[in-house]
């Protein structure tokens, strides 16, 4: 049995596990969050990931237990469950599925759907001289409005490597944490990582029109009848009859899927989105200014805490709408833009120029 501890904003988590692969994955991804003895402030969340439970494996928190039949899935499931659980408990920050960087003391947030090029753009900006806070989680401190680093490893897909090769660019200095067939997890050199800063620009990446019809391959751990009835309205192809239920849905229906599965306690094992057509990135990039209110509502779409977040459950309206005004307040001094990306080098220059002003 081994214990690993990590600090995430106003909480720290204690992971206890006898499963080496789970511990290795978590260590590889979150090593920059490792807790020091002096840093045990905040609320503690404990997670047990154990393999010797009546011949099966299980993931336990203080409020639920999930039994896993197939131990080979344990690392990915543990990561997914633990992440969603502690994100919902964070009170100090609003967390968004977005890249965050700094240019001097100015913070930059880039929000986009998966597969739209956030990581590629973030790495290209680092190459230009920006510092990275995160390629996938922008954390806004609710008290100070500052952007806090979330230095998890970056997961690099083949598409990102291809784009850099096309431009004959080297990757920023990094070391490899994990390598799989589809992706590679890297940590950038600490000299390329940024610190807490005040947000200066927010870019909402415009989805290409064809993305409205982008499909996702979904894999669930099981498909009980009640859930099947709910999901029939959205699946494009019916589920496979063998192994884990797998089917296709439109990307636009992902929220319906997550809500239905959450309600019935069924895990979504995998969501595999098709990447955006590369020709989308051959055009000229364009930006349009956005009002603070429109930007706040658009950004809320990427809120990571979900409906179970304490920030949603405990606000006076009991829903995410109660987060809009605090978010607008935090964006008061932030220049907000809708960005239609194009050629990567031109997009980088455009963002760089805006941050110089």
């Amino acid at each position: 049995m081994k214990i690993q501890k990590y600090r995430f904003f106003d909480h720290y988590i204690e992971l206890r596990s006898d499963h080496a692969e789970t511990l290795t994955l978590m260590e590889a991804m979150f090593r920059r969050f490792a807790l020091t003895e002096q840093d045990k402030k905040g609320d503690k969340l404990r997670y047990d990931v154990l393999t010797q439970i009546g011949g099966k494996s299980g993931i336990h928190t203080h409020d639920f237990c999930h039994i896993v039949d197939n131990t080979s899935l344990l690392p990915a499931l543990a990561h997914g469950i633990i992440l969603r659980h502690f994100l919902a408990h964070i009170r100090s920050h609003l967390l968004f599925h977005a890249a965050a960087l700094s240019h001097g003391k100015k913070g930059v947030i880039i929000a986009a759907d998966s597969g739209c090029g956030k990581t590629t753009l973030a790495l290209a900006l680092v190459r230009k001289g920006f510092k990275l806070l995160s390629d996938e989680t922008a954390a806004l401190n609710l008290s100070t409005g500052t952007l806090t680093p979330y230095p998890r490893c970056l997961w690099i897909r083949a598409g990102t490597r291809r784009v850099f090769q096309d431009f004959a660019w080297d990757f920023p200095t990094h070391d490899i944490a994990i390598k799989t067939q589809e992706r590679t997890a890297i940590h950038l050199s600490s000299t390329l990582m940024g610190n807490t800063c005040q947000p200066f620009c927010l870019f909402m990446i415009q989805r290409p029109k064809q993305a409205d019809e982008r499909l996702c391959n979904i894999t669930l751990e099981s498909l009980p009848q009640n859930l099947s009835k709910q999901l029939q309205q959205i699946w494009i192809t019916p589920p496979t009859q063998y192994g884990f239920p797998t089917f296709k849905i439109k990307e636009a229906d992902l929220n319906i899927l997550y809500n239905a599965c959450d309600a019935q306690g069924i895990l979504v094992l995998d969501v595999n989105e098709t990447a955006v057509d590369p020709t989308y990135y051959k055009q000229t990039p364009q930006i349009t200014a956005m009002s603070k209110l429109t930007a706040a509502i658009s950004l809320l779409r990427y809120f990571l805490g979900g409906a179970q977040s304490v920030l949603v459950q405990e606000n006076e309206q009991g829903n995410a709408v109660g987060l809009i005004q605090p978010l607008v307040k935090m964006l008061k001094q932030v220049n907000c833009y809708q960005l239609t990306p194009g050629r990567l080098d031109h997009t980088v220059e455009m963002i760089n120029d805006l941050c110089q002003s």
Partner: protein
Amino acid sequence: MTYVSRKDVRATEVEQELMLHDPIAKKVYVLNPTARVIWSLCDGAHTQTQMNEAVRSHFQTTTLDVSQDVQNALNWLRDYQLLEQ
């Protein structure tokens, strides 16, 4: 004919825009400055003609398109069921 906004729809001012939250449909809407004026006149006391005049006066414009803008805004509010039936 006059128009009345639904009482359960929450209106929140944010800079020059107004955010409407429909708790039943669970949707939020953003009204631009013109639609915001029209929404404020959906009080059961203003006809569409009076709204046209109010918008002209508010934005100090003599453009003939005002009545079309007002009509479009009212259609939009009706389509999204933000007005009393």
